Each structure stands twice: as C-alpha cells, then as structure tokens.
C-alpha cells in the first residue's frame, strides 16, 4: 500500500470518527449548544481543553522553534502551561460559579453595562479571529503535505469538516470530538518521540532521555549537542538569553494571554460543579504537559539527529576537541543523502546549494562573524543546507526510520490539532454574536429556537470568514499569535480578574481599563509590525535596539495588562461606587455554594 493510501486511510478514518461522535452528541438546546449541557466530566473536559488549546502551532511548529533557539524558547513552554495555574486559581472556578454561557456575559453583568459587554465582544472577536486564521492555514499545510492536494483545497476540506460537526453539535459535539482529537494527536506526537529517544539514548521516555546519555558517544545528550553546535558556529543550545527582562515579560504575556483566551475559558463552563472546574484545570494541564514535556526532548534530539546526518562522525565519542576540524571536514556527500532529505527537498522545505563545489554538504551558521575565519580555514564558502523549522515534527518518523503507518498517524494528528482549536475558536465567536450581541443586546425577546438558529448561522458565517481569511492570509500568519495573546492578556484577563477580586471596581473603570490595555497593545504591536500588519507602514524597525527598554512587541501583552489595571483603578477612584446588588453578585461568585441553581436560569 502506498504512503498516500495509508495517509488517506488514517485521515479519512479520523474524520469518520469525528462526524460519528458529532452525530451522537448533537445539540438540542442552547445550553447544550453553548456549554454542552454543563454535564461534562472534569477529566473529559481536561482532554477537550488540551485539544482545544494545542493548536497546529503547538503540534507542528513549537518543537522546531525550540530546536532552532534552545533555551531562549523556554518562554513558550513555561508561558503556555503556567497560564493554567492562573486559570485554575484566579478565573475558572468563579466564572463556573457565575454559571453563564460566554465571557462577555460575565463582563456585561458584573460591570452592569452594555458598553462593557460590547467592548468584551470586540476584544473576543479580535483575539479569536486572528487566532483562527493560523489554524486554517495550518490545516491547509497539513492536508497539502499528506493528501497531495493544494493547500487551498486543504483549507476547504478543513472548513467542511468543522462545519459538519461544529454547526450541528455546538459545544456538545465539539467537546466529544475534541476528546477523540486529543487521543489522536497525543499518540501521533509521542510514538515517534519514544522511538527517537530509544535510538539516541536507549531511554524510552523522551523527557528523561533528553537529560540522559547519548548512546553513541557516551556523553550527555545536551552536552554533545552543544559541543557540535558551537564547533559549527551556531548559538550554544543551553546558553542564557541577552535580556532577562524581555524573557520574563514574554513568558508573562503568554501566561496572561492563555488565561484570557475566551475559547479556553468557556471550556470550564461545561463541567457540573465549581470543584470540577478546579480539578479540570489540573487535568487539562496534565494532558497538555504530555506534549509540552515531550516537545523540548523532540527538539534537542531532532536537532542532534539532523547534525549527525550531515556530519556522521560527530556522533562518535570525541576526546580531543581539535579533532573536530577533521570530523566536520568529513561531512556526507550530497549524492549519499538519506531518503527523507530527498522527500522533503520535493516540498521545498529543505534546500541544498553546493557553494564550494566539493560535492559535500556543509551545514553551519554563516551569519556568525566570529566563526567566519574558522569556516574559511575549513574551505567552506557558506551554509549549503537550509531546513525549515516546521518540518521537524512532521519528518520525525522518516528520520527515525519508522514504518509508514506512523507517518499516516502524524498526518491525522496534525490535522486534529488544527481542527480542534479552530472549532473551539469558532464556537467562542458564534456564542458571542448570537448570545451577547443578538439575545442580550439587539433582541432580548428572541426564543430559544431562534437563538439556536442564530448561533448556527453565526457559526456558519464565522467558518466562511475564517476560510476566506485562510485562503487570503493578510501576510502576517506568524505575527497573529502575538496579537491574539496580546489582546486577550491586556484586555480580557484584567477585566475578568478585577471583576472577581475587586468588589469596588465599577463599570467605567473596567471599560476604560479594557480600552487602554487594548489600545496600547495594538499601538505597540503596530508600531513595529506595521499598521494592520502592512509591513511598509511600520514606524520603527522591529529590532531590539529600537524596542522600548528592550521589550519586544511579542512581550507587550503583560505591559498592556499592567496599563489596564492602572487605568481601571484610577478611573474607578473618581467615579460612582459599585451598586450593592453587584457587590452581592461578586460575593456569590466567590463561594461555590448554590452553583447548581445558578445554571438553570
């Protein structure tokens, strides 16, 4: 059976599974459509949250980014997991107690203001739409690689599948398909990782293998990796970063952004009790950690594998550092390159150019000026191999010589990661439109049936828009994640937190805070990345010398959140006090007692 057929079988089989589940779990009421009836078991919700959370970027790109930059990328690992601690302690249990359907619902009621609700809807839609574009393009890439269709066709297929199960199933359908998608994606991610870890370190558990001994050389794996990288002029894998401040702020931005992303928060509305919301956050992090603890191991091992593919002798034990000149001189002949390099050359994601015409591959950092002398001494005329970061996870099974069904599994896993996140985001968008805009603002008399229909239509419209944006990405696919996290962290997170932890925070303070946080974050990002990401309109070059105090636009969400808090408290101190019934509402949100009654409204 050809690889194409195997991929078709795995991907097709997973689709049949998702649609079957969606049919079984189709939504019959608005409560089922928005919060799956509020009856999801905390462990199942944890799995669904993990699938919801781990996007195409987590599955495909994260290990590649870590492999390329080493320690500096730890911010992604800590930021995208540490946010769950914030969720579990500062947001999820109280919002579950509040017991409504959407994030703007809480902000609108707590700040007793239509303006606050609309502001929250705006922030939610901005954050979710920018995020969903990346999922659609990610699904398109996965489809085009594994099913040999164009990436446009891939996006259409992804849209059709999401349409089928999200529009009919609502949150109930999405929840149970996400559980299945989590199982598919975690198996797909860990199987190749276990085999690579066994091959390199004889340890089947990647997170231990990474800190274990490299079997072939007898040296610790990370030490070996760093040694070879430094000999090739690359940056030391484990070296410290130049700016601690920027790394701290970047990590914090990812954490508060995680806690403020609406599609993650609404998942905690689906569990039966407040106590379940707490447990569920823990389970979600366990399921996320299975991938996030494996990713850095995959990263370091795949990087070492790539280096020793090009320089086979570097894998052996090296006693005398001077012998590296000779070892690295004996790189492989281009003609002898392994099969997987040839496969990926076909996609253009691996490129080779024989700059010094010696028939061998030279792979090193030719942008490192300090290393240029050494390179010239070795007769090298520039780096000859370029490898796209994104292929690391996808090419893993081929690099480790695993059977072709594992490749089919990776295909299904990558697509599952993209689809599950897209569906969660689309639900958050459609609920904000049908519940907060239509039911709570424009037409409060709408019947339950009418609201369901409105929810389905807005879901369909959101899918069409996401598809269109996926087909015509505004040229900022890489930056949108920063924007989504920046918006969620600087606007939604502080508003929710103040709504729970401060009885005195009033409507005007919250609205002013959200506007200031959102405004400053957008301004800072657009200053360096261009207005609406049109690069030519950037007002300052996006380099560390031009950043204010060395803070990158990616790290600004945390600063935006601080601005939000400061402005909110300042405005609050000058304006009318919160009415008593709102203070009572905050009081009731803080105590788990009586949550069951609150949801049956």
């Amino acid at each position, binding site marked *: 059976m050809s690889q194409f057929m195997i991929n078709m079988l795995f991907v097709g089989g997973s689709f049949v599974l998702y649609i079957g589940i969606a049919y079984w779990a189709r939504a019959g009421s608005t409560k089922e459509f928005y919060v799956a009836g509020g009856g999801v078991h905390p462990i199942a919700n944890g799995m669904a949250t993990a699938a919801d959370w781990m996007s195409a970027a987590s599955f495909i790109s994260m290990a590649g980014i870590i492999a390329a930059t080493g320690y500096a990328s730890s911010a992604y690992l800590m930021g995208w997991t*540490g946010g769950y601690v914030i969720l579990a302690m500062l947001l999820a249990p109280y919002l579950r107690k509040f017991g409504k359907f959407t994030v703007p619902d809480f902000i609108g009621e707590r700040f007793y203001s239509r303006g606050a609700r609309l502001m929250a809807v705006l922030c939610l839609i901005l954050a979710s739409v920018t995020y969903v574009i990346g999922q659609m393009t990610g699904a398109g890439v996965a489809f085009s690689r594994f099913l040999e269709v164009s990436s446009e066709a891939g996006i259409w297929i992804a849209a059709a599948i999401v349409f089928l199960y999200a529009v009919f199933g609502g949150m109930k359908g999405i929840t149970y398909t996400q559980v299945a998608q989590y199982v598919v994606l975690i198996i797909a991610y860990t199987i190749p990782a276990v085999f690579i870890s066994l091959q390199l370190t004889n340890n089947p558990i990647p997170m231990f293998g990474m*800190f274990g001994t490299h079997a072939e050389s007898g040296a610790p794996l990370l030490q070996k990796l760093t040694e070879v990288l430094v000999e090739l002029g690359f940056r030391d894998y484990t070296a410290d970063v130049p700016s601690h401040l920027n790394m701290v702020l970047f990590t914090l931005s990812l954490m508060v952004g995680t806690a403020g992303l609406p599609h993650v928060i609404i998942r905690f509305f689906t569990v039966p009790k407040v106590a379940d919301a707490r447990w569920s956050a823990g389970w979600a*992090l366990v399921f996320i*950690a299975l991938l996030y603890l494996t990713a850095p191991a995959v990263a370091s091992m795949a990087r070492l594998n790539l280096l020793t593919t090009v320089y086979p002798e570097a894998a052996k034990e090296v006693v005398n550092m001077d012998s590296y000149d000779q070892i690295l001189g004996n790189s492989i002949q281009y003609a002898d390159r392994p099969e997987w390099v040839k496969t990926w050359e076909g996609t253009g994601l691996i490129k080779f150019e024989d700059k010094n015409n010696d028939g061998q591959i030279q792979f090193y950092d030719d942008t490192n000026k300090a290393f240029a002398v050494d390179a010239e001494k070795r007769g090298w005329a520039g780096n000859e191999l370029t490898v796209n970061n994104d292929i690391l996870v996808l090419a893993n099974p081929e690099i480790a010589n695993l059977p072709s069904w594992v490749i089919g599994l990776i295909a299904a896993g990558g697509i599952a990661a993209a689809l599950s996140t897209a569906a969660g985001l689309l639900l958050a968008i459609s609920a904000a439109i049908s519940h907060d805009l239509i039911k709570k603002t424009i037409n409060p008399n709408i019947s339950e049936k009418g609201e369901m229909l409105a929810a389905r239509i807005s879901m369909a419209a959101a899918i069409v828009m996401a598809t269109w944006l996926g087909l015509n990405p505004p040229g900022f696919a890489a930056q949108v994640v920063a924007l989504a996290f920046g918006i969620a962290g600087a606007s939604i997170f502080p508003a929710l937190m103040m709504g729970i932890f401060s009885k005195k925070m009033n409507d005007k303070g919250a609205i002013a805070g959200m506007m200031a946080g959102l405004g400053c974050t957008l301004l800072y990002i657009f200053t360096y990345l261009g207005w609406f990401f049109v690069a030519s309109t950037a007002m300052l070059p996006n380099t560390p010398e031009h950043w204010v105090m060395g803070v990158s636009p990616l790290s600004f969400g945390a600063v935006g959140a601080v601005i939000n808090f400061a402005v909110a408290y300042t405005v609050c101190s000058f304006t009318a006090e919160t009415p008593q019934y709102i203070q009572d509402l905050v009081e009731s949100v803080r105590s788990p007692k009586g949550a069951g009654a609150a949801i049956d409204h």
Partner: protein
Amino acid sequence: MQDDKKNAAAYWSANLRLIAGSMFIWALVSYGFGILLRPLLSGISVGGTDLGFWFAQQGSILTFITLIFFYAWRMNRLDKKFGLEE
C-alpha cells in the same frame, strides 16, 4: 446573616492566602529558577546542562501541575470546612 457574612469573609481570606502561597511558588520555579536565578544555579549540573535549564523546560511544568492539584484539593477541603460546598 451576620455569621454568614463573617464565614464567607473568613473563607475568602483563607482562599487568598492559599492563592498567594501557590502563586509565589509558581513565580519562583518559572521566573525565578527558570530565568532570573538561573545564573545562581549554574553550578548544579543536570544531565549535560544546569538546573535552571531543567526548570525552564521541564521542572516548571511539573511544578505547575502539582500546584493546581494541591490547590484543588485544599480548596475542596476549605469548601467543606466553611460549609460552602455545593
């Protein structure tokens, strides 16, 4: 009624103390050991690198999981102690 209020206030301040303690550890393992204090821990080697690197890529995540389960367990006990469970 007054007792209910006092009870709720005591429950809330117990919760806040628990959150403060947990968040201190949360910040210590990630921003502390993983980033700012890494140079201080560089003497302690772990599998080919130092302890700070391990905290940044593994230890902080493992601590986060422990913290959430610890918090959930303690809060459920607090809910019962103050009679505020569902």
